[in-house]
């Protein structure tokens, strides 16, 4: 079982976490065509490499970002969301 480091609670077994998908900025719904919107909603790149992912520490209700290498399945680093980021 993998270990994931929550920025608040430290290293914990992966069972304590819930995966929240790739970090993606929502495009402005007002100025976007149907196809481009559908692309945002339904398609994921799946490209191997370092991906930014949402993770949630269930016991403490903590959302944070993890950078994970999807080729080696290694977490590179984790940090809390910054609204400006």
């Amino acid at each position, binding site marked *: *079982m993998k270990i994931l480091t929550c920025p608040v609670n430290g290293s914990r077994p992966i069972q304590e976490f819930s995966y*929240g998908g790739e970090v993606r900025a929502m495009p402005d719904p007002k100025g976007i065509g149907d196809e481009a*919107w559908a692309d945002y909603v*339904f398609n994921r790149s799946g490209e191997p490499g370092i991906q930014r992912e949402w993770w*949630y520490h269930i016991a403490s209700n903590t959302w944070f970002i993890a950078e994970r290498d999807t080729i080696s399945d290694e977490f590179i680093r984790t940090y809390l969301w910054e609204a400006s980021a």
Partner: protein
Amino acid sequence: MKYRLPAQPGEWIDRTQELNFRFEGAAFTGFAGDVIASALMAHGVQLLGRSFKYHRPRGVYSLAGHDANAMFSDGTHTHWRGDSVLLAQGMDLRAVNTIGGLKGDRLNFVERFSRFMPVGFYYKAFHRPVWAFPFYEKQTRKIAGLGEVNSALLPTASPKDYAWCDVLVVGGGAAGLEAAWAAGETGVRVMLVEEQARLGGSLAWQHGRNLAVQQACGELVAALAGMANVEIRCATMAGGHYADHWVALFDAVRMTKLRAGAVVYTPGAIEQPAVFGHNDLPGVMLGSAFQRLVHLYAIKPCDRMVVLAANSAAYGVALDMLAAGVEVAAIADLRPDGEPSVLGEEVAAAGVPIYRGHAVYEAVPRGDKGGLRGAVVAPVDDAIAARRGEIIACDGLAVSVGWMPNAALLSQAGVEFSYGQTLEQLTPIAQPDGVFVAGRARGVYDLAQQREDGRVAGYMAARYTGQYDGEVAAAPQTAKEAHSHPYPIFPHRGKKNFVDFDEDLHLTDFANAHQEGYDSIELLKRYSTVGMGPSQGKLANMNAVRILAKLNGDSINDTGSTTSRPFYQPVPLGHLAGRRFHPLRRTSSHEWHRGHDAEFYHAGDWYRPEYYHHGDTQRDECIVQEARQVRQSLGIIDVGTLGKLMVNGPDAVELLERLYTGRFKKLAVGRYRYGVALDERGVVIEDGVIARLAEDRFYVTATSGGADAFYREMLRWAMIWDLDVTLSNATGQLAALNLAGPHSRMALAPLTDLDLSPEAFPYLGVREGEVCGVRALVMRVGFVGELGYEVHVPAWEGERVWRALFEAGAEWGVRPFGVEAQRLLRLEKGHLIVGHDTDALTHPYEVGLSWAIGNNKRFFVGQRSLQVYAERDIERTLVGVRWPEGFKGALPEECNLIISGGRMVGRMTSLASASPLGYPLGMAFVEPDMGEPGTRVEVRLDAGVMSVAEVVALPFYDPDDERQKL
């Protein structure tokens, strides 16, 4: 036990403890410390099992569990492995996979038909005619397979355990003992696991006669035993390596899930077989197996043996034979120059004939085929000579032609291997962080260097954990000469040359599979099943790769190898099975429900009353009675499982506006609204009520099953949007109950300080006040379609308030009602349940929720996708369906399909087989043109017959919502 030798220096048996056991009906004795196979061998029993496909006689081959020749059953345990299971008093054993017993196995005729069973025959044969396949299947299953499952066995719970250490050392041989000692010396917490019953590894058998080595081993074991930070677990197998050094350990009774900071693998090397005619006969064994028999169990298995050699280990075996009183008839050494070390001279000096550059081409079977009477020895690569080669009389044959690193767990851990021609074996070339390999698995064969290699790995692992910062010396070089023959395969026409003993695969099977196009190792494995038997290719995979490389004209590295997966050895399913840890949530009035004969069911984590038993009344009738009482007078239901979320702060209304489809800016304080939430695809994911308690204070209810996930999304969106809100999930802190029915106002009024008059507290109102002297939040709700009050109080007051309201309702004959009655009541009202009447694709327009979507809102999640749906025609619509009054025929289940003209046109989402209205009713998705009231729909029941229903307008009951507005 006439084959037992006098006491050996490091033997594992305890001669003071004699054990009685039975095998195939006959009585035997053995010693404590014997494994099943050694106890039988002590009596000269060489025939220990029958092979998987041809039912060929088999005996000890590796004595290390690397083959599956000797498997036993006592009727309860189906697959006791003779090489490793310790003998116990009173065992009553039979060999698996025979009919009529091991000796006279009536299935041995199968071998005569072997030419009709080419590789992959079960993919090709028996499929025509199709009707006959079940017969063939039954027969094949009887003949093939390894043992019978005892279906009468009572399941026993196998405990799980968890453990932690800084450094795990897997393998307690020379390198492993040193690694554990070195790591232990640095002060980190060490665990050493050894598959065998005792520590020592190859020290115990390969160096069995060397008293200095035995003494050094004993001292090392004693030193480890004296280290408080070192835990030793013998008879424990590391079965799988998972992410971040999470290792599954198995012993006789349990699985232990171990988390290690670093892992040192010192699993040693597995001696590999040679392929020649009848190489599977009992009496043919690995040199290491002979040494294990002699040194661990003091057994002399044969009187006169031939040794097939390709390394110096074979000469050690020959010397062990001489010391044990076995006549060495000959050594056939595959190497043209023979043995360069001093061992060669010692063996020659003892008068053993050495045939350099010679191979064994055939083990010649005895008349009864249960053993051998000789070995055909001829020059290597001279098949013609082989046919008339010299037969050297012998009753045993030891094979010592090469080794392969015991790599299964290393591969799982991510260690990469490469084949090198210096050693003619695979050696690790790259290791992931925190994984260290030492000893023979790394290609280090000299004993002093094995020990040094172990120490280096132990220190490195300790340093990896960050708790040791000493300098670590460089690891010793790997061996400079090959200990393995590059191609120990000597085809013998017409005789069975076995490559995989588990699966009875012989050399021609590989050639045939290759000819049929299975020229990659992964394909070849799946077609031929090589390496797929109980020993997982420990003895077969390397030779299979060699054979395929030769057939393809490729190198070993280009040929590759198959993927190693858990488990290293088969483990009892009982060790894996177990309870899952599920949280169980009970509402505050749980005990009251129990006391009132509630039938509980699991709703997610929650335990909820489904209905309450009522004398001898049947389930469906109980439910209808409960529902009728709500309609006619008064009912009470525990809705403590509702999600209860607090949304407070200046931006609270903004958050709700963005999360829900409806409008909340103008929602008055003291009022609530029904809200629907979507995901970005526009799919309905949640519904509930949003109550405004103050300008910046909202109380939100969510579905019992979806509340946690929805709360999670609330948190994320609030963070992304940087809104000034405080969110808390009060689901567990608050109890909730719903008092429903025309008499609910009269029942509640005396117990609260709130003015319940319709003017002061209208439908869709929310009030904070006291109920039974407890601070409460009360909402006038209408989910079940009657006048009703939902009362939320702190969980620790929940049961008291419940009891008080129940007592107050006695005057109106109050009945508690369960989830089923509630579902029935809301169904009559046409209220959908998200996740029950909706699915993962349902958008609001399909389920009549367009009224809940706020027009001209600036933004809400899912809005953009809804704009796309709004321009399209819907593909289905949720409608009410009913059967005639008093209908007594068969009814569908929820999710049964609606069929029209042979086509699926919809499905049932909810169904009530009985209702206070007197007829069965439900909701269903249908195609939009079938949504008109009066349309006839046909639902296909599980049995295949059709049931006819009629589409009706929703709701079924009180279309003007007059009852809930009383």
